[in-house]
Each structure stands twice: as structure tokens, then as C-alpha cells.
């Protein structure tokens, strides 16, 4: 087994920055009690101004005149951690987010699918960069060593035990993931690197630092195998963005929406699934949230398409009040089956598959706008059709090409009856209909399908056109 560790040194900050409209302006994350705010993380622009993590907020304000302050939200960071675990799940079946700010993936089983490690590493880095998370990656034969080595050397690759022991020997004691007080006491004994620690007699060392530290030292070399809690992807996707200003137009929601649909697509690709229905919730300061359902007729998972469809639905929304937060909830995640294509299919440029075209039309024109047509076996013409499903057989009777949705009186000076009557009756139990249908030529030369009450030959109601 080979474990890749993806260390996310700036997880909380990256989570905030990727949703921030101006990530290039100075921005800091703060936490701590109200009277003593401390900078927890700073972005590159703030660092250039001389700010750094650990400064009190008051000091930072004295150093730099203008910077954005964002409250650190541990729950939000946990959500990002989960999101990335869901993403990593597509690269390996065993993913663990047990260790803080890092992901561990068992990758050896995936080499046959993604190619050897250098190529796979490039894929991981490309994805993380696109998602907007800074990262360090290391590969080692066990997860604990991978985690410890990722902290000191980005891009380190170790596949065998001998180089692993050598690399661990070089590791500073305080970077080995040992309990802090144990690492401290080892340092005070004059032990700087792990090689010196491993050289000590084990029993004596155990008495000094305790069994927990001994366990960690054994886990690093792989001598002690401790199972990790593996990540199980959830069965629904939720994502939420709060704005620190009021959004008055749906157009301003497009930027965060593009991010969200992109995240949803990444999550779906990890599950190898699709989405059939999701809801956009626009939360207001007061009053109920506006819900914008986005329903598809078939599962989809392409990020660009999901964005386009959500945007189409959002364009139709009239905002009653400014929006304070946007939430995307997807609960129906059926399996995704890509459409089959002919290899030698010659298609013009800009070709769009029908499913995508249909969703595009529905997004703008309404959910009921696109439908099919089928014959329903019923004598009454107005009920002899359905907008979906299989067709019954067509009766070989004269039937008009156009049917009027509602019959209207036929106004004509001298209608000429060409054929008829054809009696249409339904039972008394079922909306008693008794009509005689005639094919009529109007004085203008049109051929109409009209009916009148049984036995009469006037008061025609126009019901269709022989077009």
C-alpha cells in the first residue's frame, strides 16, 4: 500500500478566499475573544503589507490601513475538509480525513486507472489548483509517515522501507506528529532528529515518553498498523455562501453560483453519479427563503451545463427582498449514464446533444415547455392525446392535423358538409359527451372538423383544422 498525504496548510483561508469577490486585496482571518482578537491566517496581499498570523488585530490595524477581516468559522473549515474528502474519493477508495488539515488517500490501487504516481500527482495538483486550495503532497508506504513527511518536504516520493527509514531519521523531532510534551522532553534530552530517537533502547525510551509516543514512533516506520477512519461520501450535497453585503439582483449571484455548481460537479464526479434535481435557496434578512427548484429530465453532471441551467432558472426569479445567503441543496443523486455516441458520427461544430438542448429550453421557457406527443385510446378527441408515453394504435378515421384546445363556435356563412356525421359518445359515468362530427368546407376554402349536438345540423362547434 502506498499512501498519499495532501496537506492543506491554508484550508480555512482558502475556503474563504475562493468565495471572496476580491481575493487579491489584503484579507485576514481572525479568531479569539472579542476583546483580544488575533490574526489566524493572512493572504498573500496582507503578508506583503507586513501582516502575519499570530498578531493581535489592534497591532495589525496599526501596521496596515485597510484590509478585510473575516471571522474564522471552524464549522465552515470542517465543511471544506469534507468537500475535499468527497473530491479525493474519486482518486482512491480509502480516503481519510482523520488528521487535521490533511487528506490521506491510498493510491497504489488506483495506479492502473490513473497511471503511475507522477501522472497521478499532477492530476491531484491540477484539481486542487483549479479548486483553489494550496497544498503539499507526499507519498509514503504508510499514512502516518506520509503525513509527517508532507509537512517538511513537498513532493517527496518514498515507495520502499529503506529510504523511508532514512527520511524519517532526518525528520526533526517536533515535526514527527508526537504529542507536544513528549517532543519537548525529547528536545530537552538533546535529541534533534528521529534517527537519534530510534537509536535509543526501546524499553528505556518507553518509560520516559509513555506508550502513546512509542506507538506514534512505531506507526511512522510501519511497525504498528493502526486502521484509519475511512471517509464515506454522504448521499447528498449541500453548499452555502453567506454574503457580508446585501445582494439586490440575481446577476450578482452568478459568480458564487458558478463556484457552487463547479463544486457540485466535482462531488458528482467523485461519486460517479449525476444530479436530477437540486434546489437553490435564496435566504433573506427576514421572511421565508426563496426556493428555486432546478429539475432535469435526466441525470447530468457537467459543471458548465449545471451552471447554465441554474442560471436560466435564476434569471426568471423576481427578488422580493435582498439576498443574504445562497444555498445549493442536491438530494436526488441517481446514477449517471453517459449517452452513447456513434464513433463515426459526423456532427457540425457547436453541436449540442438533445438532452442538453431540452434542459436549456426548459430552463428558460419553463419546466412544462417541452413535451412529446402520443395517442391515448379515447373516443373524445380532447382526451385522445398525451404529452408523453407510448402511443396506442391510430384509428384510420379522418382526423384533423390541428386540434383546438377549446372548441369555438364556427362562424361561417355557408358551411359545406363534406363528410359525416361521425358519432362520438362517452358513457354517462364519464363526463357525458354525445356529438356528431362533420368534415366541413368553409366559404374561405378551409377544411374544418366541427361537431354539433346529436341529430342537429347547425350550431357547429369548430374543434380542428384539416391542415
Amino acid at each position, binding site marked *: 500500500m502506498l499512501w498519499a498525504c495532501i496537506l492543506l496548510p491554508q484550508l480555512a483561508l482558502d475556503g474563504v478566499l475562493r468565495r471572496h469577490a476580491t481575493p487579491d486585496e489584503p484579507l485576514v482571518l481572525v479568531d479569539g475573544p472579542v476583546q483580544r482578537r488575533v490574526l489566524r491566517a493572512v493572504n498573500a496581499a496582507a503578508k506583503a503589507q507586513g501582516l502575519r498570523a499570530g498578531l493581535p488585530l489592534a497591532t495589525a490595524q496599526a501596521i496596515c490601513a485597510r484590509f478585510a477581516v473575516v471571522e474564522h468559522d471552524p464549522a465552515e473549515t470542517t465543511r471544506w475538509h469534507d468537500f475535499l474528502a468527497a473530491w479525493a474519493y474519486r482518486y482512491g477508495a480509502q480516503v481519510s480525513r482523520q488528521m487535521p488539515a490533511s487528506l490521506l488517500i491510498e493510491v497504489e490501487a488506483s495506479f492502473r486507472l490513473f497511471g503511475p504516481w507522477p501522472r497521478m500527482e499532477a492530476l491531484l495538483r491540477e484539481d486542487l489548483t483549479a479548486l483553489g486550495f494550496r497544498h503539499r503532497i507526499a507519498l509514503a508506504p504508510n499514512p502516518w509517515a506520509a503525513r509527517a513527511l508532507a509537512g517538511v518536504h513537498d513532493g517527496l516520493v518514498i515507495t520502499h522501507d529503506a529510504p523511508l527509514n532514512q527520511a524519517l531519521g532526518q525528520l526533526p523531532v517536533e515535526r514527527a506528529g508526537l504529542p507536544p510534551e513528549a517532543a519537548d522532553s525529547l528536545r530537552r534530552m538533546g535529541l534533534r532528529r528521529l534517527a537519534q530517537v530510534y537509536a535509543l533502547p526501546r524499553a528505556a525510551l518507553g518509560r520516559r515518553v509513555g506508550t502513546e509516543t512509542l506507538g506514534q514512533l512505531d506507526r511512522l516506520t510501519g511497525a504498528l498498523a493502526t486502521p484509519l477512519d475511512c471517509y464515506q461520501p454522504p448521499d447528498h450535497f449541500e453548499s452555502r455562501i453567506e454574503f457580508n453585503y446585501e445582494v439586490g439582483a440575481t446577476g450578482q449571484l452568478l459568480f458564487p453560483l458558478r463556484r457552487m455548481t463547479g463544486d457540485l460537479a466535482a462531488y458528482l464526479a467523485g461519486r460517479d453519479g449525476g444530479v436530477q434535481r437540486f434546489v437553490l435557496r435564496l435566504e433573506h434578512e427576514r421572511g421565508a427563503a426563496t426556493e428555486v427548484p432546478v429539475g432535469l429530465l435526466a441525470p447530468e453532471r457537467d459543471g458548465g451545463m449545471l451552471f447554465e441551467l441554474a442560471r436560466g432558472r435564476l434569471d426568471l426569479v423576481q427578488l422580493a427582498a435582498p439576498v443574504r445567503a445562497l444555498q445549493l441543496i442536491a438530494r436526488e443523486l441517481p446514477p449517471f449514464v453517459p449517452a452513447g455516441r456513434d464513433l463515426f458520427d459526423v*456532427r457540425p461544430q457547436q453541436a449540442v446533444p438533445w438532452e442538453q438542448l431540452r434542459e436549456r429550453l426548459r430552463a428558460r*421557457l419553463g419546466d412544462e415547455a417541452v413535451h412529446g406527443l402520443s395517442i391515448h385510446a379515447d373516443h373524445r378527441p380532447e382526451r385522445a392525446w398525451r404529452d408523453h408515453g407510448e402511443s396506442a394504435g391510430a384509428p384510420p378515421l379522418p382526423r384533423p392535423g390541428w386540434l383546438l384546445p377549446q372548441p369555438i363556435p364556427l362562424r361561417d356563412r355557408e358551411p359545406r358538409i363534406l363528410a359525416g356525421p361521425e358519432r362520438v359518445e362517452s358513457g354517462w359515468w364519464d363526463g357525458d359527451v354525445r356529438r356528431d362530427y362533420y368534415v366541413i368546407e368553409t366559404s374561405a376554402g378551409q377544411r374544418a372538423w366541427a361537431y354539433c349536438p346529436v341529430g342537429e345540423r347547425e350550431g357547429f362547434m369548430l374543434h380542428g383544422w384539416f391542415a
Partner: protein
Amino acid sequence: MSNVVALDHLFDARRLWRGQPQAHAPSRQPTGFPLLDAALPGGGWPEGVLSEVLLPLDGIGELGLLWPTLARLTQAGGRVALIAPPYLPFPAAWANAGVRLDRLQIVRAEPRDVPWATEQCLRSAACAAVLCWPHQADDRTLRRLQLAAETGQCLGIAMRPASVAVHASPAALRLVLEARPARLRVLKCRGGNPPAQPLPWPLPTGAPSEPVPDSPAATVADRA
């Protein structure tokens, strides 16, 4: 003071060139009516462009003009989109005309959305034919649809009222149906001169569509 010059001299002096009648690739979209095919330059619907069918009234056999084409396309597995049809297509009649109903898609749209929906369908290459009923289409809109039809290599047909016949249109083919007397005129066809004589309507076909007992139309068809 007229100066008579024999054309031969001009030809010999290479000062006058004789134009060649442009040979047209035969259309792969026969209309299903031999008479109409013979009257059109490509021998059928012009491909990858927008055609217009102009109607003075509803119910004068306008669908009969299209059904053979739609039946051929849908039976070959092509998809046909109807954008904002004025009435409900009555499935029994369409099925009797040979149209495969499961390949038919109806798109309901507000008048202002009809050009947009038509353009999307034409451009997508997902449909074999797109029929639309634009309420009001100006020159610019029609030009856009024309371009979209070229992009998607799609048979586009716009059904418009006969009153617009007096206005110019970028459509490659313009047909007018007339009710009294029943006849079909070709107003314009790109790549050739429209026939001077109107064609009889209904046109004779290999297979009669939509037989109506005792209809005078049947006798017209026999005479043609």
C-alpha cells in the same frame, strides 16, 4: 445613335463573358411531391437553410405539405421540433401521415421567446427539422435563424401569414399556399427562377395522405 455590335466580336475580344448556369448539388431532402421537387432548383427542400411557408388561413392543407418530409425524417430516426405551434397537433392524424410520434417534440414558448428557442434548436444539430410559427419576425431575426440553420445543418421551416409575402425575406425558399383557388406558388427559390405557373394544390403524391371521403380535392388531384 445606337451602336450595334455583334456579340460574337465581344466574346472573341474577351470583353464579354458568358455566364454558366450554376449546377446545384441535388437536395437530399425531397418534399415527397414529384411536381414540387421538379419545380425547385435542388430537387427538394434547400438544405441547411431556412424556408418559409406562407399561409392566408389555417386549415388549407399546410401540414399535408410537410407531413411527407416529416414522416421520412422521423422514420429515419431524426428528431423534429415544433416551436410554438398555433394548435395542438392531433396525434392520430400525424401518426396516420406516417410521422413517428416518439421523435416529435413540441416546445411551448411565449411569442418573444419563439425566435430564441428556434435558434437554439436549429443551431444544436440535435434536430433533423425545426418548424416554427413566429408571430412577428423582422429581417434581423430571420437572418439569425438562417445562420443558425446553416450552423446546425438543419432543415428549418417557418410558417408565417401570407400578408408578409410583400416584404423581402432572407429565406432561401418561400412557398405560398392559396385557398381559393387552391394552389401553391413558389415566390422565391435561391439558385433558380421560381416557376411562373402556380402548382395545383393538393399536389399529387405517390401515396394519398389523409383521405377524406367525397372531397373535391381528390378530383383536383386526379386531373393534375
